[in-house]
């Protein structure tokens, strides 16, 4: 059921990116899609009653060089978290690129509306 709500969020973002006519609304739709995808990836690795993947000093046995079994059986999956961490920073970079394109287009044509930017030069 939480997967279905996350997918609904993704579909809302897709609707906004396809249907709307203002350039900033299209950018907002793409951002909503990115939030939904990051949330879905982290939700895949969740374990009920789990603990965060950071080892405490009490759980490590330095003599045998082993982590306690309670940690191994209860910890949340660290691999999707590593994927999502880079994805969040990349989404900020691509937001900067999209907004700079919008700003340039506004300076040239005077509007944010995409139905009035049909003239291609050259």
């Amino acid at each position, binding site marked *: 059921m939480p997967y279905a709500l996350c997918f609904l969020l993704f579909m809302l973002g897709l609707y906004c990116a396809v249907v709307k006519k203002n350039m900033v609304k299209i950018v907002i739709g793409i951002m909503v899609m990115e939030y939904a995808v990051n949330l879905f990836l982290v939700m895949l690795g969740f374990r009920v009653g789990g603990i965060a993947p950071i080892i405490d000093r009490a759980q490590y046995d330095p003599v045998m060089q082993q982590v306690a079994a309670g940690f191994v059986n209860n910890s949340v999956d660290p691999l999707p978290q590593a994927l999502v961490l*880079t994805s*969040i920073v990349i989404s900020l*970079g691509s937001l*900067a690129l999209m907004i*700079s394109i919008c*700003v340039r287009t506004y300076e040239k044509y005077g509007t944010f509306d995409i139905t009035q930017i049909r003239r291609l030069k050259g």
Partner: protein
Amino acid sequence: MKGMTIIVKTVSSWVKMLIVLFGIYIILFGHLTPGGGFAGGVILASSYLLIMLAFGREFVQKDLPLALDSKLDCLGALLFAMIAVLGLVLFDKIFFSNFLYLPGKEFELISAGTIPFSNIAIGLKVGASLFLVIFLLSTFRRETSANK
């Protein structure tokens, strides 16, 4: 772009030091507590952003000019690539191997090989890049509305 009132300027010049300290803490302890290079780099960029909003754009342009910022960005990326290539050429003949067996126990600041250095390189790179982009967006905005 003009700055703000004198109360905002005074307070933000004190708070900027706290933000930079917090960012450096999150970068350096990235292998022991949550955080790492990415979050710390973004926090460092936001400290300069606070100064730009409070004091005006010309002050920041004198303090950290864009040429120096671009060089910091490239320096961060170059450090990260050098850590990778050093593992290939000199030490273990494996790309990106963790080659520093420094004398340190676990759960202390000096441990985990090349991971703190990679964190520092990434924090530098991400912070410089994001500050550059936000600065350019503000500069561009002022010029277009001055032309109208």
